[in-house]
């Protein structure tokens, strides 16, 4: 079972606020799910270095450019200032 700290770490990675009760619930739910997916460890080992594409096809080097929509691009923005998108001050920079 994940510790409370581990649940909080995951919640931080996912940027989801969790309450104390929710932490307990996540501990239980995540245990059930992780016990399930952990069964993958029992499947025989594969070549670790070989990477598999999630999809089957290969990128086509002859692919040409296309047009993609750009009208009303700011129409759904919750907070705008002029032509800019506004956010709370970015502290990290």
């Amino acid at each position, binding site marked *: 079972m994940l510790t409370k700290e581990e649940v909080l770490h995951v919640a931080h990675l996912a940027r989801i606020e969790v309450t104390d009760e929710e932490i307990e619930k996540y501990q239980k739910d*995540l245990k059930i799910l992780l016990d399930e997916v952990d069964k*993958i*460890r029992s499947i025989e080992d594969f070549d670790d270095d070989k990477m*598999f594409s999630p999809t089957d096809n290969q990128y086509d080097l002859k692919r040409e450019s296309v047009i993609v929509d750009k009208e009303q691009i700011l129409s759904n*923005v919750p907070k705008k200032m002029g032509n800019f998108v506004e956010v709370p*001050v970015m502290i990290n920079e």
Partner: protein
Amino acid sequence: MSKYLSLSLQEIHELLKNKKITPKDLVMECFDNIEKSNLNAFINVYKDYALSEASKLEELEVDDDLLFGIPIAIKDNIMVKDMKCTCASKMLDNFVSIYDAGCIDEIKRHHMIIVGKTNMDEFAMGSTSETSYYGAPHNPWNYDKVSGGSSGGSAVAVSSGIIPLALGSDTGGSVRQPSSFTGIVGMKPTYGRVSRYGLVAFASSLDQVGVMSRNVYENALLLKAISKEDKRDLTSFETNDDITCLINKPLTNFKVAIPKYFISDIVDKEIRDKILEIKTMLETNHVTVDFVDIKYIDKTAILYQIIAMGEASSNLARFDGIKYGYSYLNPKDLEDLYKKTRRYGFGSEVKRRIMVGSYLLSGENAKIYYNKALQIRDDLSKEFQKVFDNYNLIIGPTTARCAYNLNTNLDDPLKSFMDDILVMHANMGGFPSLSMPVGFNSEHLPIGLQIIGNRMDEKTIYQLASFIEKEIKDDFSEVRNGI
């Protein structure tokens, strides 16, 4: 009110062509159905838009396209310009699409009329549509039963006769499972046949737009209409094959495989018996039906969970209250904006999956889980391909049980995965897979047969499905008149 919409597409087309009716009549009838229905199939409907589109069509000559003027419902995770696209989430309750999905371009090109956006599980995560922010749809066969999911609204809209056709999306069975629960035909095509541009991503490497209809032929027609390489989706490919060409063609030298796992005791006995009945029927018609073993077939749910939740945790990171959608008001700071927006904007199933997905990719876990899952998935696909070397198709039940009561085990984190345990393989391998109704259980709820084909081989699936459809004597249209 007239009942043109219950006619076949060929019959409707004749009426349109001979100017006995107009597209507007169909739209009016459709909205009459919607207004009378209490099944909660739609999240938003667009009557004015639909009527105005219908009027525009009246200026045009009716061409030979059977889809001309036919109303269609679209799952609410597919972008239709100027319509809301909520994904059944509070997060996108106010979100208005500013562009058309690739498949919607094709729907519009075929002069079909979009009437509204259908109910679903929040961000397509679930198997009953009960995780919808707008409440669950009801199964037309029994109001207290689930519709299945996540494309539950689309399934209900078609099965209850509101509309003849609908689009859904299928990441791990989300078209086929509700089709099975509601007694309609649902197809998840080969990965890449239909553009994913404009389909809100759940698990990118598994997602595919699917088609839902009352019968096999109309299903193939709709899929043919939306199959198209889209330069805006690098995983889509060119398709020129006519997937309807084998419909109603005789099954000569036909071989079908049933994986033993599909009729093991994880499946309800009534459903197993029905599949065995189909087997006998096929054999009577000189089709070879063998039981086969497929390696990893019982491990698929594990792979699915890892890949689907891992990718989802990343795909849903973009919902952060900055660019669109719900945004927590007056946050203390940036972190508060992120965390409260996502806390209040997402429902519990979505949050749980994002949490697990984030964990599965964190630190060294990505190697242990995600990369390994991709490797085994590759092997699983090869195992299926080996079967297709010897058999035309694989068949089995779509679901292990029929539609069950609403509010059953809502809190069980594994439930929805277990509901889809027989349909995920097709998503894993990118194979086309169809569900069609083949009978009823003792509660008079539909039983679905699943047909899986090799990649790109939708036409053979439709060939077998059209054959079985003719042989099945049950009537799956009875709830269509109950509106």
